[in-house]
């Protein structure tokens, strides 16, 4: 019986991506290869749960780059706790993949 997690696989990937420094929505999409229709609703949910905090980037930096400001997501302390559970979930997937490789080999 595999352990039950309270966190979805997509959310786990997203938390990992943010922890790795991918803070903007589209960068998270690129890093996780998840579609925007999955990433954004998950970002909203994780923010509501208090795991993430959204911060607008500096106005002047955006103006210099010639575009509107972007919103960046950071892990909150509770997000860091959730990350532990997320890693456990991802580790179980990794084990599964490795099993598959062994079986095929």
């Amino acid at each position: 019986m595999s352990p039950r997690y309270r966190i979805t696989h997509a959310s786990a990937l997203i938390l990992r991506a943010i922890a790795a420094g991918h803070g903007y929505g589209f960068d998270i999409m690129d890093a996780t290869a998840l579609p925007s229709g999955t990433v954004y609703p998950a970002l909203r949910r994780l923010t509501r749960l208090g795991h993430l905090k959204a911060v607008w980037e500096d106005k002047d930096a955006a103006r210099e780059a010639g575009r509107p400001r972007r919103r960046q997501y950071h892990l909150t302390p509770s997000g860091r706790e959730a990350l532990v559970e997320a890693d456990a979930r991802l580790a179980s997937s990794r084990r599964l993949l490795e099993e598959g490789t062994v079986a095929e080999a």
Partner: protein
Amino acid sequence: MPKPDGAAAPWRLRLALLLVRLAGVIVPRADREDWRAEWEGELRASAAGPEPALRRLRAVWGVIPDAYHLSREGLSMGQIAGDIRYAFRSLRKRPGFAAVAVATLGIGIGANAVLFSVVNGVLLSPFPYPEAERVVRVVGFWKERSDIGGNVSYPNLSDVDRLASSFSDVAGAQFWRPALLLEGSTRVLIGSTVTGNYFDVFGMPPALGRLFRDDDAGGGRAPTVVLGYRLWATAFNGDSGIVGRTITLNNTPYTVLGVTAEAYEDPEFSAGPGEHVEVWRTVDMNPADGFRSGRSWVGAARIRPGVGREAAEQELGVIMARLAEEYPEENAKRTMGLTDLKGDVVGSARPALLLLLGAVGVVLLIACANVASLLLSRALERRHEMAIRMALGGRRARLLGQLMVESILLAALGGTLGLAIAAAGTSAVVTLAGTALPRAEHVHLSLPVLWFTLVVAIATALVFGLAPAYHAVRGADSAAAMAVRTSASKETRRLHRGLVVGEIALSMVLLVGATLLVTTLRRLTTTDLGLDRPGVIAVGLHGAGWWDLENDAATVRYREILERIDALPGVEGAGAIDIVPLSSGFSCDGVRPEDRPPPAPGEGHCAEVRAVMPGATEALGIPLRAGRPLAFADDEHSPRVMVVSAGMAESFWPGKDPIGERASIHGESFEVVGVVGDISTFGPGEAARPMVYLAAAQEPWNGSARGLNLLVRGASDVSALVGPIREVIRSIDPTIPLFGIRTLDDLLSERTAGARFRSVVLSGFAGVALLLAVVGIGGVLAYAVRQRYKELGIRQALGASPGRLRAMIVGEGLGLVLVGAGVGAVAALGLSSLLRPFLFEVSAREPVILLGGAVFLTATVLLGCYFPARRAARIDPVAALRSE
């Protein structure tokens, strides 16, 4: 809010930003500003990046689930499923509404999916060659008339291949029609004579054996062929031992080198519309022996990696300038350029398909307007429900979201129906198009088509769903809304009517367009071509290489066949010609009147020269204007003579009697003995060209030996003559293959296939648009009757006759129709220039068509007023007064 950068923003970004604005409507107001700013920030950052980042713009579709989730913040999946169930239930409660809405959307989406699958297959799907974008067509043209791109000569093409460094290969293909002798029966194939490097240009490995190499081509080589996959699979039953075997084409043994890949798509340079090349052989002469001023080759080339197309074209120009110095006689006025391979293959189908794509978009807009108008009526009926739900604490954004779920559900059902329509419609459209559609084998329901349908369905739901949903919840929080069940605000009523007027106007545009195209088709098929078309059948006799006879011996054999056919009962006349009028062949040979000094190199007249057997112009019904027709006495040994068309006589010898004048053709001198009427040999809509008819026995290119088409005029049913004609030919030569048995009517219908396709498809769209407009106005008026239920009841109680009540409702409908038709007529005038290239002998602004369209539209759409008017006349005044 950041402002868009105006013109600098590419259209994709603008569309994406528009979608964000639209979807933002359902996001709770408190979050909306930030939400939009976040999406805009990401999209603009992506758009500012390098090209691949543009792909990230596709992520904009995520705004829909994102906005939807926010609109029902705090809801679980179970509750969302509840929303969907609720939407299903509320649609089931009004099955009539749901059925009309889904059918309308299904037709609109389905028609779009059908047309998109055609556009995708014909225009968008790439050629299967590796790096297909580097394969181009090489065209030759007159320097002063760069608009006419065309064929090139073998020596020029081969020099360019040798000298140019921009191309890895420059190859050519030429028309070839070999007859295949297989197990005692013969069959004429569509073939192509090519240079040795032809297949290197396309770069696709064979399915079997090998393709040509440079040393397979040239004089003195053993004859070899490559078979097309389809021919190999059918005629040779996919025999894998075919490589190395010998097959007989035109009485000559050819060794099979290989079979092309199944996916290989030939650009069909030497095939007619709807034909596919089945077999290739290499050219059997050296470039030095070629005819430099001849132009019977089609060129193709592969540009080397790292070389731009402009640079390649420049080099081509430089080389041609050099060849012009070396060979001024042939090349002084000629040069070469590059054109897009796909543009060449797709040709005239592109503008027509884009036009129809626009038209089908209009049909979808009408469908959206229709459903929006239905939803609006329904939304107003539900204001009471919305008001109660808001009074009980429902949030506006939630209610909006819920209504949008209903719209998306409708669009999903409509999209499903649309796919079913597309599945059935796509093959029907391909069949209908016939030869008018190149690359038709690529047209099918594919993944891109499914994606397109999905996107269209979602976009449709947003377009038709948002405004009605907004109107449903707006003002629903007022106490008044709870008290009054069904009163619409002025603004809502205006929106409602505006939708119907817009729908009628768009229908008018399509109707006028369809009428113009149908009129064009009628004029194309009835215009005078200068020949008496009905009752003539053409039968191709595969002479070339088959009989292996000298020209005079071949002439004798043709004469024998013609005389016996002439004696058949029911035959009124028979002759033969090398290129049948209305078929796709042309010649454009240099003809020089001898009473003037010879023209400068590259100048001079080009005429359509035809080799005929006596009786041909008579069989075609071309009237003799002066002198005598060609006769059997005009043979090899008698003086060279010709019959010319009236237009040719007028332009060559203006104001003179042309009989007795002389002109030289390919170095030989011919005397005019007769003048016949002009004909439009290239079909209706093409200008009549100067025509020259030579006796096949005297033609410099050995007309008889090359093979001619018999022309037979029948007294009544000409197709009944095919059997007896076959018998006659068999009795003279039992093996000679016949091909291209077609009446002139068949040929005309092939020539007008494009016009027929366009007019039938656009008429279909106009018909659907009209039907939707009828349903649309019916819906609006039915709603108006419901709104004015009480008022109508009072009027009746006060003595208004049923006829008067009917007239009131019809009058209201008439007002809408007239405004719509007027707006539509103005729009049709504005858009008329788009149709101009497709019209023939009809003005895009013909008043009769505009007026007729308006009258027909009004009469048809007024039918939609019938049921609401009847209902108004039958209101029971007592029941009406008792209602709230």
